[in-house]
């Protein structure tokens, strides 16, 4: 089946490449934090030991449990901790730790948090993830779409509209993303008090699918949304404007005009042809956008992955850190893969090159 269908073959190829990338990402995710010598077990032991008498046997049991939780020891067939001659737990080698980490990750098991032990990382992330997705996905997508529309408009109309829009977009895209966020919080949130200065929803409420909660969440959504949206908008508008100006000067636009083809049709030509390289640019920029949006979440105390990451970093909660980074990476990879496949369908130039037809 794959042999006969070049498109499927191409998609399968891309999927394979992305899977390879995923493996590399997981490996990086595992090894980098372990470059240092932080030991989560020591941290927990210190915490557990605080106050009260020291009972050697109880301590050992606790230690074994912690080591087991963090996958740092060898387990026998029954799942018990293997002990050496002195009765001390045998530490697993880095390689076997890696293997079990890989195995667990592929199953979606991201381990246990240190700070909030025995809460599992997966639980922490699954509470935060919807907020991040809900904020970043629509914001980046809409920012991208409207940014491109704005850029195309500026390129076509030129004149007064362009003279205002272009410098404006340039300025906005020069402001670091989170700076815009800080600015908005300060001006609109604190000084003018039009919007809340932080958080995802009113303090008194608990997350639920009620109208009250949803409207509160919506209200808190506005500033962070604007923050990210405007930055993406500005950046895209500038790029699209350049692309469109270029397209308007091409031979085929000139020829289309000479043939008497309608202006609206020609504009469609320009737009479509300029959009396609923009899609490629989107794939490259996604990683950066997501990173920037994470920091925006921090500024707004938004209960998403960004804040979770910040807390984890400040408390050296490694499992949560690596859990968050892995998840973000997977999301970015998925998004890139989607865009990659989409481009193949939309741009005949790339499609022909990819599938090598005719």
């Amino acid at each position, binding site marked *: 089946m794959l042999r006969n269908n070049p498109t499927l073959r191409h998609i399968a190829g891309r999927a394979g490449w992305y899977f390879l990338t995923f493996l590399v990402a997981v490996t990086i995710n595992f090894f980098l934090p372990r470059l240092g010598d932080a030991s989560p077990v020591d941290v927990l032991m210190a915490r557990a030991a605080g106050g009260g008498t020291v009972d050697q046997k109880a301590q050992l049991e606790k230690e074994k449990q912690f080591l087991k939780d963090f996958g740092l020891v060898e387990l026998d067939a029954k799942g018990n901790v293997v002990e050496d001659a002195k009765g001390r737990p045998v530490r697993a080698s880095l390689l076997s730790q890696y293997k079990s980490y890989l195995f667990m990750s592929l199953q979606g098991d991201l381990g246990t948090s240190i700070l909030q032990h025995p809460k599992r990382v997966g639980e922490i992330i699954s509470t935060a993830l919807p907020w991040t997705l809900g904020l970043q996905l629509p914001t980046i997508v809409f920012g991208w779409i409207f940014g491109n529309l704005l850029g195309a408009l500026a390129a076509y109309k030129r004149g007064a509209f362009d003279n205002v829009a272009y410098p404006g977009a340039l300025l906005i895209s020069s402001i670091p993303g989170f700076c815009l966020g800080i600015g908005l919080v300060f001006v609109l949130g604190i000084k003018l008090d039009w919007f809340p200065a932080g958080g995802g929803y009113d303090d008194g409420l608990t997350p639920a699918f009620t109208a009250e909660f949803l409207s509160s969440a919506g209200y808190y959504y506005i500033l962070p949304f604007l923050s990210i949206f405007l930055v993406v908008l500005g950046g895209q508008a500038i790029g699209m404007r350049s692309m469109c100006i270029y397209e308007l000067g091409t031979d085929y636009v000139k020829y*289309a005009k*000479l043939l008497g083809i309608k202006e609206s049709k020609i504009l469609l*030509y320009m737009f*479509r*042809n300029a959009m396609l390289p923009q899609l490629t640019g989107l794939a490259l920029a996604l990683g950066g956008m997501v990173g920037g949006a994470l920091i925006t979440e921090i500024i707004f105390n938004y209960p998403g992955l960004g804040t979770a990451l910040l807390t984890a970093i400040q408390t050296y909660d490694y499992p949560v850190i690596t859990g968050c980074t892995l998840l973000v990476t997977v999301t970015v990879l998925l998004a890139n893969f989607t865009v990659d496949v989409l481009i193949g369908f939309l741009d*005949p*130039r790339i499609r022909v090159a990819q599938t090598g037809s005719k």
Partner: protein
Amino acid sequence: MAVLEVEDLRVHYLTRFGDKIQAVDGVTFSLEEGEILGIAGESGCGKTTLVSGCLGLYIPPLHLTSGDVRINGESIARMSMDENRKKVLGQKVAMIPQGALNSLNPTRKIKDMASDMILSHDETVDPKTIYERLRERFDRIGLDSVEVLNSYPVQLPAGTKQRVVIGISTLLNPKVVIADEPTSALDVTTQKAVIRLLFELMDERIISSMIFITHELPLLRHVSSSIAVMYAGQFVEVGTTEQVIFDGRMPYTRALMGSMLSAEPGQRDKKPFAIEGAPPNLGKPIRGCRFAERCPVVQPDCSSTTQELRIVRDRQVRCKYAS
């Protein structure tokens, strides 16, 4: 009645600084049915602007100064842009562009771009009829219509693309076709095929007459029935092919023909001809003969007397001393 009549056409363009450059300064000629007029001249002589004028297409900063252009008696010089687009472009006058290889929208199938053109002139035609017309026409010009129509430009070789462009340009059977260096990027064999195609289209009355612009002498000789030599916005010699090429009476004509002979055929590069000096600045009013500064046989009063076209030996020559 002539197919195309150009009467004392003057076209200028405005630079960013407000200067008025008179790119076409009084051109008059008529094109009869079946006639192929070759236009020869250095780059910057006003050929391209003249083409715009013949199309009735004045996109700022290009503006019509004065004069008239008529197709089959109907004036097209002062139409609104919308009217011009609908009635003239592609329909009465069509252009085969210079960079034909890049003239097709890379993200549109051939049949789609061609049908865009048809629909832009007549919205009522239905897709089935359009497709059939396209098939019929493309087959007629020697292309495998089904394959070509459903392809993207990137999938077609250069020679095929050139045919496609000619096919699309002549789709609505325009009376006048203006070919602007249509073969400059092609190899000799493909050139021959393209020229042959153009002749066929004329023979079959799909197109009535043609204006052919080129700076390759063999091509000029082979294709044109008459030739106009253009210099600094004016025609300086107009006559039959034989007359102009072998027996030019205006000094510029002789110099031009001589330099074209030394340029290699098929070379796309528009290097300045071997005539020394440069054409005059058309932003300022010019007195006397425009070629005076570079003319090898210039006379003392050439720069002070305005030159008009006179009849010398059955052709028009813009030179006081031609005989």
